[in-house]
């Protein structure tokens, strides 16, 4: 019997034009939690898909419990006891939780699906995970965290010996993450081997014994978590040293720029009031689903609030659509780059100029030369890694896509207030630092910045003032000095506390 449950050697995977994996190796011990780290585009996701049989490697060998295996498709991997929980929940929103859990390994008798038994077993799995919803509800009606839980239940239900978690905590808040850690530990104790991909160092320290680092499609090394420092690890991942992750500059705060009063929208948020001054970075945090994004989208005219007033530089303004917000200098960088931030099939240049295209005209015709030069300038300003401005946005990594979104905001020369919704979500360490850098520079130039984030370190590291939301209300406001992780969490969980009190 081999020392490893899973071992891969010399794996090379080529996509048209790119080598996504170049001679990488990997070993997984039985019953361990093994972290897999690396920047976006380092090849982690491709690697996972090779293990699960979605992609077929051009070269290399894979051993399962010492035996050489050759997966022809996802089914083979499933049958061999490998299950994966992917980065973007790969669920079926229109189907029930039970169906999602048992998809493609339904319980059948005489070719007929046994719904009763499946529902019962699904309930058992959910109970194991302390889930608070029924297996008969539709997947689409659940929160991201709940969906993640269903994905894990799905992995457990296949009685997998190896479970792969691809950035499971990216969309989770601290408390939800904690719950996930406990589940992972429980699984490990039951003898399941786990591969854990994450950008968050706290995940790794909390769970993993060993960590493997990939960079630029290549294998860099495998290290004991306790034997490696944070800085060393970052250096391995990025290939250079990053001195200061949060370059918060000292800024003299100016006049109040934006103030919203009594913002309410049925079912989403109620009585929200906040203000931001020139040069100030404020954080808006809370659990996912607390209504943070919804407030900002209403402010930017994406949705219409039921009530509320907006004051810009002391004067009341009325916003009926996203165009109005932009005209007033309020710019939103949406959370979901791929769905609402960029047009992936378009070139970078056109993406950048999209919001101001009507201003780049001469006698009504688009001045393409001016357009190209303008977008080139701004793309270079944010240091996008691209060859030409005609490269498709889909060809960039997450971090570079985010930079394009930033350029798309900066190009609006009347910009006063910039709202960034989870600007570093799914962005690797290297690019993260660059984005913080840009934020700092913007603040210095006197823009007001509102950052929505679930990541405690960046909230604490970058913000002058922090608003915490819970269940559609602002439950707390903290200055940079007052703010600690504990106090933020306390405000963010106000509702749960209230409920607990009520129960007693």
């Amino acid at each position: 019997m081999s020392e490893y449950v899973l071992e891969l050697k010399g794996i090379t995977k080529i996509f048209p034009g790119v080598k996504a994996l170049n001679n990488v190796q990997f070993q997984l011990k039985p019953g361990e939690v093994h972290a897999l780290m690396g920047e976006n585009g380092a090849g982690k996701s491709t690697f996972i898909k090779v293990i699960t049989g979605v992609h077929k490697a051009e070269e290399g060998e894979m051993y399962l419990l010492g035996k050489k295996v050759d997966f022809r498709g996802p089914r083979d991997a499933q049958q061999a006891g490998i299950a994966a929980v992917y980065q973007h929940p790969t669920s079926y929103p229109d189907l029930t939780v039970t169906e999602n859990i048992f998809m493609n390994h339904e319980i059948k008798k005489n070719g007929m699906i046994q719904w009763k038994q499946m529902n019962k077993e699904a309930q058992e799995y959910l109970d194991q995970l302390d889930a608070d919803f029924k297996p008969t509800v539709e997947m689409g009606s659940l929160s991201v965290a709940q969906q993640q839980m269903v994905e894990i239940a799905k992995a457990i239900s296949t009685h997998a010996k190896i479970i792969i978690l691809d950035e499971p905590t990216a969309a989770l808040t601290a408390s939800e993450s904690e719950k996930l850690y406990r589940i992972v530990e429980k699984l490990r104790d039951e003898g399941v081997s786990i591969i854990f991909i994450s950008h968050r160092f706290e995940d790794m320290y909390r769970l993993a014994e060993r960590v493997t680092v990939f960079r630029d499609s290549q294998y860099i090394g495998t290290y004991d978590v306790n034997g490696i420092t944070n800085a060393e690890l970052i250096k391995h991942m990025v290939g250079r040293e990053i001195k200061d992750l949060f370059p918060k500059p000292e800024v003299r705060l100016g006049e109040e720029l934006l103030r919203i009063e009594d913002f309410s929208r049925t079912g989403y948020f109620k009585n929200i009031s906040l203000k931001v001054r020139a040069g100030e970075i404020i954080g808006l945090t809370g659990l996912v689903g607390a209504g943070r994004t919804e407030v900002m989208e209403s402010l930017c005219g994406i949705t219409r609030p039921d009530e509320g007033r907006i004051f810009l530089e002391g004067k009341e303004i009325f916003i009926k659509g996203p165009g109005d917000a932009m005209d007033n200098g309020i710019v939103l960088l949406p959370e979901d780059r791929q769905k609402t931030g960029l047009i992936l099939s378009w070139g970078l240049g056109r993406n950048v100029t999209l919001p101001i295209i009507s201003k780049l005209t001469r006698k009504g015709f688009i001045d393409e030369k001016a357009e190209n030069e303008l977008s080139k300038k701004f793309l270079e300003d944010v240091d996008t890694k691209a060859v030409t401005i005609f490269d498709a946005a889909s060809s960039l990594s997450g971090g570079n896509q985010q930079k394009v979104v930033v350029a798309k905001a900066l190009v609006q020369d009347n910009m006063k207030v910039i709202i960034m919704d989870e600007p570093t979500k799914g962005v690797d360490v290297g690019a993260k630092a660059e984005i913080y850098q840009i934020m700092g520079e913007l603040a210095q130039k006197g823009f007001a910045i509102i950052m929505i984030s679930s990541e405690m370190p960046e909230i604490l590291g970058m913000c002058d003032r922090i608003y915490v939301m819970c269940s559609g209300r602002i439950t707390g406001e903290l200055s940079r000095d007052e703010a600690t992780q504990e106090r933020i969490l306390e405000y963010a969980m106000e509702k749960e506390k209230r409920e607990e009190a009520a129960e007693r």
Partner: protein
Amino acid sequence: MEKKSLWKKITGSREASLVIVLIVLCALISVKSPAFLSMQNILEILKNNAVIMIMSLGMLCVLLVGGIDISITSTLALAGMSIGMMYKYSVIESTLLGFVIAAAMGAVCGLVIGLVISWGRVLPIIATMGFMYIYRGLAYLVAQDQWAGADALGTFKDFALSNSLGLGLINNVIVITILCYVIFYIVLKWTKFGRNIYAVGSNEEAARISGINVTAVKTAVYTIMGLLAGISGALATSVYASAQPNMQTSKEMDVIAACVIGGVSMNGGRGSVLGALLGALVLSVIAKALPLVGIDAIAQNTVKGVIIVAVIILNVLTQRMMDKTNLEKREM
């Protein structure tokens, strides 16, 4: 507890609201024309619209995987016309054989479409638009500018008259329709293949990752659609005792409308056999009732169109209302 959730299920579902629409429609019509709800009349409605109802099932599957098929009535005409000519020139005599040939022809037509769409990655609307012209053209070529009339069809047309399959009570055509619905209900709800159809429509990428052969499912769905169109071709030939190359032209839109009225999403993943049935019934009742209640012949299309638009918009508005009440219930 159980009972309450059942009640909730009924009030919350789109099918239930359709049942109400259907009941209201029937009630209004029978006030004007009391004979409407007679057993004979109901059976006639079912028999005359069997073709639409059966094809709605195939369309349901096609829409469930996020596709569309506007070539179905061309397939129907090709299959129906072909067996019509076979009877005419006495190539075949047996009724069963006619059905088998029509079904097989339909399935092959559907298979070709399925391959072009799933393997050739052509958008469904474009592919089926092309095949709409092709199959219809072939039907004309097969027909040679002739019809297969009652005389030519021999005993085949008696199938639609007889109640032999329905134990002497229900017409054969209706029996086949019911049979199709039962089979599809079981397949979609209780078999792996049925659930795969929903999975592919709900999230194609996820389906691929979880090891479902998406290409095969899509191909199969269009083949089934073709199969049903073929059977419908045979049924239509039998029911009207005549096969013509321009048979059921542009009825594919009725089939799509039936599905959409029945709450089947055109984006895939959502829809039920019951919904398709109710949608088809609503359309059938309207078609049957307009002449009965004495609406002027030239206004009938307008009324039909307005009702379709109204039902669809009503669907949206109820959905919005439901969403809004759900939001209001949320605790702040």
